[in-house]
Structures are given as C-alpha cells and as structure tokens.
C-alpha cells in the first residue's frame, strides 16, 4: 500500500548533528571589520563630527542617543563595537595543507597548555641559573617583595580564554603552583614581566567614605545632615545636639506622623544603638514611598547624620549593624505569562 508522505525541503535534508558555535572564517571577520570602519565614518558624519577622530566612546554615546533603550541589562542594549570584541576569538586551523600540524605538541591534545608549562619551567630554570651565578659571585640576592596582597592570579576561565583551550582543574592548579614556585624564588624579578602576564590587580579597596564635620548654626548648636532612601522614599534629616529627643517629620510630631509603633521603633533604632536617645533633636523631611519605606528612609538619614557626632569605631559598629547600608530591595518587576513577579497563574490540569 502506497502512502504519500508530504515533506518539506527542510526535512528532506539529512539530519545534521548539532554543530558547535559557528565558525567564523578569517575572511568573514575581515569583512566585518571593514564594515565596522565604514559604519563608524557614516556615524561620525551623521553626528556631525570628524570621522578621523571618532573614538569608541563617541560611538557609544552616539548609539545611546540614536537608539535610546530602557533595558536594565547593559548587554541587551544596542551596541556597536569592534568585531574583535563581539566575535569570540577562535583557533585557526592548526595544520597545513599537507595535514601536518604546525605545533610540535599538537598530538598531546592540549598544545597551548603544555607549551605554557614548558615556557614557565624554562623561566624557572633561568632564574635558578641566575641565582647560582650570583651566589658564585658572592653578591647579595635581591629581595624585593612583590606586593602579593594587591594582586591575584588569573582564574581558570580567564586562562582558558587566553589559551583558547579547555583546561581541567588539575591542570590549572599545577600551573598556578608552578607560577607560585617561580615567584617565591628570591631573584624572580628578572622574569617580572612574564609573571605579570598572569596576575591581575585586585580592585582598589572600598573608598573611605568621608564623614562630614559638624556644622554649627546661629545659637552655636552643633548639627549635621544626612540623606536616606528606601524603596521609593527619599528623606533628609538634620540632627541637632543638646536636644530632648523630640523628632519632627514634615512639620508634624512623630507620634502624629507615624501612628504605628513599628515605624517609631525604626526611628528609635540608630539612637538606641548609640545610646543617645534623649540627647538629640531631629527635623526631617520625607517624600514618596509608603509608611514603612518612609520610616526606613528616615532611619538611614538619621544614622548617616549621627556619624559626625560619633567616633570612628562606633561608625564601624553602625556599619556592621546595617544602619548605614541602603536597603537594595525594590519592587520586583511583573513578568509576562505570570500573574505577578513570582506568582504563576493557577495551574489547571485540563
């Protein structure tokens, strides 16, 4: 019995196995670079600027102006960058026309890794030889300590990107051990340049927040201001010294503005923590948000204002208690296909 099966041309092709990431040929990349440069000149013309001196920053600014986007993720916005940054680097073909590989370690499977290990070991031997020379000449060994605290070795992923090859954890740890051995030698300064290729500086330590000094108003009473925010509420607080513990918010007493005990407890917290409940007066303004958000914003503002009255140690304690951190929680966005941010629609079996 004949059965006619109607198929489309797409299905008639053989079932090709899923290929890996697309391979970009050299010619393709070259073409992309040419197009990019041309596009850059066109863009410069459009913006009315000089095509010769159009830098990448100018391009970014121009694109942000021409295609404004409200997306939060930077990577999702339209961008125009050099093709080298967009297309990941790929390994060129490792063998010639006759099928013979270029690199002598090709058949190990991890040619770049082993060649790197060989190189590093060569440097190590170099340093040892230099050391022996110095000892033979009875010269003192140089001991300039490298700043180990400010730098770190490359991570496994970064190393993989550098070598364009997959590594295993074991390989990576062996390489790092070798590097460490190299740096521990006293005369490793001669190979400083080589070592620097594999180390990265740690980001600068958290900037010290400048604590404002106290200001004095007409009667000579010391005061200090602080700002705080929480969700959508923004608050400013002015905390005066020599007070009786009274607080005013937007012109009203806290008992009237915050009838709920919980909000008043939040306001009390910074003063209670420092043990200065009845000693300061505060005048605050707040707008936006709801009841709890306003209370949290004022709390942060008061804590920030109190920093000027208090020793550094206590500031550190306040920071650890969480009084000086902005609460990052905001309302989560509602997603399509769900009823709320997390809540899904009622699941019906049929």
């Amino acid at each position, binding site marked *: 019995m004949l059965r006619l099966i109607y198929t489309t041309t797409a299905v008639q092709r053989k079932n090709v196995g899923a290929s890996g990431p697309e391979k970009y040929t050299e010619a393709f990349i070259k073409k992309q670079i040419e197009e990019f440069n041309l596009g850059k000149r066109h863009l410069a013309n459009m913006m009315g600027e000089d095509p010769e001196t159009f830098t990448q920053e100018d391009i970014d600014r121009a694109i942000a102006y021409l295609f404004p986007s409200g997306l939060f993720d930077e990577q999702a916005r339209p961008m125009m960058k050099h093709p080298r940054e967009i297309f990941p680097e790929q390994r060129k073909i490792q063998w010639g026309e006759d099928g013979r590989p270029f690199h002598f370690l090709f058949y190990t499977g991890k040619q770049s890794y082993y060649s790197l290990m060989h190189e590093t070991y060569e440097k190590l031997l170099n340093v040892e030889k230099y050391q022996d020379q110095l000892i033979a000449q009875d010269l003192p060994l140089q001991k300039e300590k490298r700043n180990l605290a400010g730098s770190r070795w490359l991570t496994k992923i970064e190393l993989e990107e550098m070598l364009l090859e997959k590594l295993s954890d074991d390989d990576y740890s062996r390489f790092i051990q070798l590097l460490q051995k190299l740096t521990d030698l006293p005369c490793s300064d001669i190979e400083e340049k080589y070592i620097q290729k594999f180390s990265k500086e740690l980001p600068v330590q958290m900037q010290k927040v400048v604590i404002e000094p106290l200001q004095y108003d007409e009667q000579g009473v010391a005061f200090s201001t602080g700002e705080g925010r929480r969700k959508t509420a923004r608050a400013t607080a002015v905390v005066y010294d020599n007070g009786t513990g009274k607080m005013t918010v937007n012109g009203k007493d806290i008992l009237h503005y915050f009838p709920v*005990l919980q909000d008043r407890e939040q306001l009390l917290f910074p003063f209670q923590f420092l043990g200065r409940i009845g000693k300061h007066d505060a005048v605050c303004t707040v707008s936006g948000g709801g009841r709890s958000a306003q209370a949290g914003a004022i709390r942060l503002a008061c804590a920030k204002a109190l920093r000027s009255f208090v020793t550094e140690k206590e500031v550190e304690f306040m920071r650890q208690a969480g009084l000086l951190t902005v609460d990052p929680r905001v309302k989560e966005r509602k997603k399509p296909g769900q009823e709320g941010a997390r809540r899904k629609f009622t699941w019906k079996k049929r």
Partner: protein
Amino acid sequence: MLRSLKGLACRSLKLEQGCGLPTAAKECLSSIASQDVPTPQRPRAVFHTSESDPAKHTEQHEGRHYSIPLEEVKAVFPHGLPYRFQQQIQTFNEACVMVRRPALELFAYLRGTNLAHPAVRYVIYGERGTGKTMTLCHVVHFCSRQGWLVLHIPDAHLWVKNCRELLQSSYKKERLDQPLQASAWLKNFKTTNERFLREIKTQRKYVWGKRESTEEGRPLGEVVEQGLARVRTASDAVGVVLRELKQQSPLGTFRLLVAVDGVNALWGRTTLRKEDKSPVSPEELTLVHNLRKMVMNDWSGGAVVTTLSQTGSLFKPSSAYLPQELLGKEGFDALDPFVPILVPNYSPREFESCYGYYLERKWLQHEQARTEDGKAELQFLSGSNPRQLDRLAGPL
C-alpha cells in the same frame, strides 16, 4: 562593644484593641482602710501621696498618684471611667489617679465659683490620649467629696450611635426616644446620688401615661423609679430629672455639677436612621435635646465641665482636637463663652511618676524596661502620650 539591638518585644505582639479612651491620670487605690495583706505599710515612693481627698491637692502634689477607696469608686463612678482604667483597677486592686495641672486649675476655678452667677462652662480639650476623661473623673470625685450633686454623662457619643431601639416619643411627635440608654443612665445616676434623690422634690405634676403620674412634691427618686420600671418612659424621666435639677439649683440647697464627656456628640451627626432610612439629626433625640438645654448657661448654682473627644466622634478626622473643629459652628456658638482647658502630654516629671508607678506595681516585667535606657526608649516611643505609654507597657 556591640550593643544589643532593641530588646522591646512589642513587635511580635499585637497591641490590644482596648477602647482607647484617654488614660492620663491613674487612679491609685491605696487600701489604707481595707488592707488585705497585713504587711507593714512600706513607704510608697515619691510618686505617691497619701492625701486621698482631692480638695486638699495642691501644686505640691502635682505629678503624684493618689488612691481612691474601692467602695468609693463603685459609689461615685458606676460609669464614667475609661475601660482600660477599669481593667487596671481590677488588675492592681486599687485605683490610683495622677494629680495633674489641668485638674488643679479646675479645682481652683470651682472653689471660686460664685453660685449667684450663671453656670460657667469649662471645656477640657487636648490631643488623643492625653487624659481628658481622667481629668473629668478627678473633678467629679472632687465635687462628690465636696457634696455637690453630680450629673455625670459618661459618654455622649453612646447616645448618638449604635442604638438598637428608637421609639417615637409620646411627649413630642417629632422626637425619638432611646429607652435602653436612658434606663442605663438612670440606674447609674441613682447609685451616685442616692441621698439627693430623697431630698429634692418635684415642683409640678408629671403624667406618664393613662394610669401613671407623679404628683407635685414627691421626691425625685420616684421619677427615677418610674423611669426604670417603665422603660418606655425612661427618656422622658431623664428629661424631667434634668429640668427639675435645673430649676432647683439656683435655690441654693445643693450645688450642681454637670459633667459631660464627649460633648461634641451633641452637635455633630448621628449614625442612627429612622425606619424610612432617613438620617436622624441630634435635635430629634430626646436625650440629646434635654442635655443641650442642660449645658446652656441659663441657670446658676453650679458649673458645667465638659470634655471634647475625638475617639468616639463620628465623621471627624483623627487629627482634630481643637474645640472649633470638633464642635462645629453650631456647637461652638452654643457653648460660646466657655473656659478652655488644655490637657497636654506628660511632662518629664509626670512621665517619671507614671513609669515609677508601673515599676512599683511590677507591671513592667521586662528586665530592660527597668534600666535608664529602657525608660528613655519608652519615653521616645510613646512620645510622652499617656495612652501610648499605657498600651506600650501592657505587653512588657
């Protein structure tokens, strides 16, 4: 040196839903007369006085608590004390009131009243929870000790809302009667002023129905009995009592104190509706009508002390506390020449006194509440407001 974070456990406990009536002055009942526990009278701390006669309270006693014997409480205040305070009396087994400046001011005025002149009206006003009702009760106690006839209406708001039964008045067709409220009030009135009811005689004949009437010259107690027995005529009985007292007070045999709590109810709106769902205005209620006449200053031989109350009031915003706002134009004009008396929050001294009282009665159980820091916290969180302090101290 990490200080511990706040130790008050209020957050987890829901505060009680007490009828938030202003509870400023605490009534201490020192049982000097009836000591249940025969322990030697330990000297009570600074914030107590043994002076239990309000007449002798002076500025010296300001901020201190004095106690009222429990029997007197039952006699003088069958109704009228705030609900939370009554609970406190039961818990502590004594009724202690704090002597505060507004009350002392009122005593001074009352002592100096000229009985020949028309009655002066005093309006006690203040924010929510500062102690207006307690001041009024203090004044009532003072007057009853002095031998005045006290006409104490505990809360005028009770007469304009939540009334189940409304009868058409037999006396005047447009008016409406409230038998339940009237009879309850008459009962309490009887308890307070027993001896006066025997002495005062009616001045004309009152006919209650086809068969009942009260002759001229009968003691007022009979009118009250009549009202209690025949609940239908209770509101009219109340009206009769008020009119008699008003007429006889200028004669000078007794001094009359009219104490009304929540006087702004008399001129506001009501939540009651007639059978055809049309709203009832206060004039159409017999009780309110008669009370309004009482509060006028066209009689002499006594005084009128009233309190404004936002808590029970209808259709008024919660931030309103000034006489103008709460009474409305009509009420303000009606009460017009009056002496306003402001009741503020606790002063630091009064706060200390109240705090000390709670400590002494072991009401504050939390260890941290006993420290100086705890006291400062309580002061901050309550804002020195008596009601807030009372509610805060509850769960501790």
